[in-house]
């Protein structure tokens, strides 16, 4: 059969299996069950990293064929189209097109399709088929399609597309054996599906394709797919690590676009429309629309409540309360357990080693530094359990929908809600979650304000200051909880306030347009939520074991050297150490806030991570108990005096310190991730300056006004 002129002949079939493990890429629309399938295929054999230069997660796992042969599987971020609108989608596009030097172009592609919404999902499949790579289509959620009364015929789809189509229910593990069998095939057919590129656009496709082959070293099939994509992509999202186009190809593309603009032709719309025409013909053959479901579905009935203008807010408030209460109550037991074991480990090391610098380095530097951070693991796990649960049930999108109205008041949209919510645990996953925000200015504003949300590292500082400010025996618990909520409220209010300010000044732009899919409600996948928590725990522990361990050792060195004369007390040693010298140097700047050089040491050391403030105060004020128990430290703080005998930790100073920590950018890891995300030092430096500047001004106001009022 003669192929149409614009179709290049397929590459010769490979008869032998490749020597290395074949690389499969998993692609699909968001909410099509892609991650569930990835988890089902690879189990715990997953590695989570990052694509260099961007904060998009790179998930690679190993699956096994029916014959036990290892298969590498890359889980690419969900995308509606290869014409990328966000960094997430840009990574998917670039990996599939072989544009990334850090990731080899996949040998084969698994396209996951939601059977309940075949037509829209086939749009991405249609683009992927153009790539000329062997493709397996996985028709997921066949059970939900059947429940909706739809009949979907996988065989007909396989016939239409000319590639294997595997019906599947990833949540229940159905269809996985058939999928593994298909993945085990040594040779997979290339798609026979052909579609007609509109006549007015075909010459441009041919010219760009020829240029991509000649100037960008692309194979003819990939070049055709890329030329079709370039005409709809508008090249709006470029991410670090993506190979740029050659000047010649860019010139040809611009030439055609200029010509069509002059002719008032909507080339991108025409291409989308012609694809949908081809897809519509396939869908008509493959899907019989449902006869059931004339009335509202269970999802519709739940939505009637959770997206209701009043009930929706009440539901969201209740969910948020549940999350916060769980974080602060359920985490207490495992945190105490970790704390006891860390103290026991430090004691054991102290008992087993001879006194000296090495022992102090291990106990006071490594164990207390890393231990002080690892103690927050339960809180982070609980938060990610809830985030995983909300995402896998489909509620998270509803929460973003409810929040959109509030977010739009400050110039953002509902998609910024999820990063801000994650930032209550830690700003790092919060900043990573901004990758789904399409508008670059909105993404940047969200990154800039996310660290203002009170993260779990601020909690020990708040607890210590509340303990010093309000003695337990005289003040009811509700007052303490009230102050804690005030701090959380201040952080949240500041995040919204600064977002409003940035959207009107630095990062002015047209109001962002948001379109967001609300997936049907589903029962949460226990395995998926569990894996999500494990993944987060691992990332957190890895950070504690690398960055924080390093910083703890450096801080220990700075507070242990130069050595004080023999017989000096620990506080005398600290006063004369490098850290003490830094504290003294800082004192003129912080004295107007009511802070002395000893608090200064805490501020400097906690620049690495906020929670380090508590352990530093323990060392500075020579508290005998470990840093997890604030009672002895509180007594030590209350005894602290200025040289003239005045009390150092007055209620006003404690309150000022809390205000300072609400606003100050005291986290090196966050600065590092903002640098990576924004690809420059400008934004993390600006962020540090505006946050710490605001913290200084507000702490000054609290102290000076408070003193003026006689506190």
């Amino acid at each position, binding site marked *: 059969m003669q192929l149409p002129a614009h179709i290049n002949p397929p590459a010769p079939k490979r008869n032998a299996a490749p020597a290395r493990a074949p690389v499969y890429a998993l692609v699909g629309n968001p909410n099509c069950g892609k991650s569930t399938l990835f988890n089902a295929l690879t189990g715990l054999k997953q590695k989570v990293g990052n694509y260099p230069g961007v904060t998009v997660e790179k998930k690679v796992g190993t699956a096994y064929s029916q014959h036990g042969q290892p298969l590498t599987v890359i889980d690419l971020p969900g995308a509606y189209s290869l014409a990328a609108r966000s960094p997430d989608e840009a990574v998917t596009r670039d990996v599939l097109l072989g544009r990334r030097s850090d990731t080899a172009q996949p040998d084969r592609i698994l396209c996951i399709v939601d059977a309940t919404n075949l037509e829209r999902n086939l749009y991405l499949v249609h683009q992927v088929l153009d790539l000329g790579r062997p493709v397996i289509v996985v028709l997921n959620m066949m059970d939900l399609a059947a429940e909706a009364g739809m009949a979907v015929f996988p065989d007909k789809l396989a016939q239409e597309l000319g590639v294997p189509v595997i019906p599947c229910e990833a949540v229940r593990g159905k269809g996985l054996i058939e999928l593994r069998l298909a993945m085990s095939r040594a040779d997979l057919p290339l798609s026979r599906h052909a579609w007609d590129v509109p006549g007015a656009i075909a010459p441009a496709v041919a010219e760009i394709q020829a240029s991509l082959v000649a100037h960008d070293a692309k194979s003819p099939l990939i070049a055709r797919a890329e030329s079709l994509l370039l005409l709809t992509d508008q090249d709006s999202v470029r991410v670090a690590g993506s190979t740029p186009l050659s000047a010649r190809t860019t010139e040809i593309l611009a030439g055609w676009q200029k010509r069509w603009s002059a002719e008032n032709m909507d080339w991108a719309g025409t291409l989308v429309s012609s694809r949908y025409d081809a897809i519509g013909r396939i869908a008509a053959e493959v899907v019989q629309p449902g006869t059931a479901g004339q009335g509202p579905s269970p999802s519709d009935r739940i939505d009637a409540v959770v997206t209701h203008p009043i009930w929706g807010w009440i539901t969201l408030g209740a969910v948020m309360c549940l999350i916060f209460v769980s974080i602060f109550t359920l985490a207490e037991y495992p945190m105490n357990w970790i704390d006891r074991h860390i103290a026991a480990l430090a004691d054991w090391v102290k008992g087993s080693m001879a006194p000296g610098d090495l022992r102090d380095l291990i106990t006071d530097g490594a164990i207390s530094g890393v231990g002080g951070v690892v103690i927050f693991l339960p809180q982070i796990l609980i938060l990610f359990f809830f985030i995983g649960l909300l995402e896998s049930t489909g509620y998270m999108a509803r929460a973003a*929908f409810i929040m959109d109205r509030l977010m739009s008041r400050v110039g953002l949209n509902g998609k910024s809600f999820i990063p801000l919510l994650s930032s209550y645990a830690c700003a790092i996953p919060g900043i990573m979650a901004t990758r789904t925000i399409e508008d670059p200015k909105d993404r940047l504003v969200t990154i800039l304000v996310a660290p203002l949300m009170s993260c779990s590292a601020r909690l020990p500082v708040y607890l210590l200051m509340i303990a010093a400010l309000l003695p337990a025996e005289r003040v009811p618990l509700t007052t303490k909880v009230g102050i804690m909520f005030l701090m959380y409220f201040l952080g949240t209010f500041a995040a919204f306030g600064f977002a409003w300010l940035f959207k009107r000044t630095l990062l002015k732009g047209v109001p962002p347009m948001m*379109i967001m899919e609300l997936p049907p409600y589903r029962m949460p996948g226990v395995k998926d939520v569990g894996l999500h928590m494990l993944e987060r725990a691992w990332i957190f522990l890895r950070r504690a074991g690398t960055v924080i361990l390093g910083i703890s050792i450096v801080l220990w060195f700075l507070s242990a050297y130069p050595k004080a004369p023999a017989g000096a007390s620990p506080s005398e040693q600290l006063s004369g150490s490098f850290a003490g010298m830094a504290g003294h140097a800082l004192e003129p700047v912080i004295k107007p806030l009511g802070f002395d050089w000893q608090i200064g040491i805490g501020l400097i050391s906690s620049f690495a991570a906020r929670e380090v403030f508590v352990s530093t105060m323990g060392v500075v004020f020579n508290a005998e108990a470990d840093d997890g128990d604030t009672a002895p430290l509180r007594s030590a703080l209350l005894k602290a005096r200025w040289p003239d005998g005045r009390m150092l930790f007055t209620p006003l100073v404690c309150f000022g310190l809390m205000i300072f920590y609400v606003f100050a950018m005291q986290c090196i890891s966050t600065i590092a991730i903002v640098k990576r995300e924004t690809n420059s030092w400008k934004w993390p430096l600006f962020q540090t300056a505006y946050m710490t500047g605001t913290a200084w001004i507000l702490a000054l106001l609290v102290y000076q006004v408070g003193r003026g009022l006689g506190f």
Partner: protein
Amino acid sequence: MPAPSPIARLPLCQLPAGAVGRVQAITGDEGFCQRLREMGCGEAALITKISGTTTSLCQVNGTRIALNHSAAMNILVERVPVPPRTESRRA
């Protein structure tokens, strides 16, 4: 129930809850128009408005989507009588 009187285009945010509109035109940012078309909400698509004026909740081709006010302002629809089934993407 009498069929709604034929009216000119109106932005999606002004379409009353429960009504069905056929997309007549999409305006605004090119990338956004492109994405709407790719998600099956292009010209001629039938959109059922479920609720909302600031943020609109809609049903298109069996999928629920949320559109913020700026987005819904840029989708011009023509109100059509509610068909027996509104799931099909194109008429």
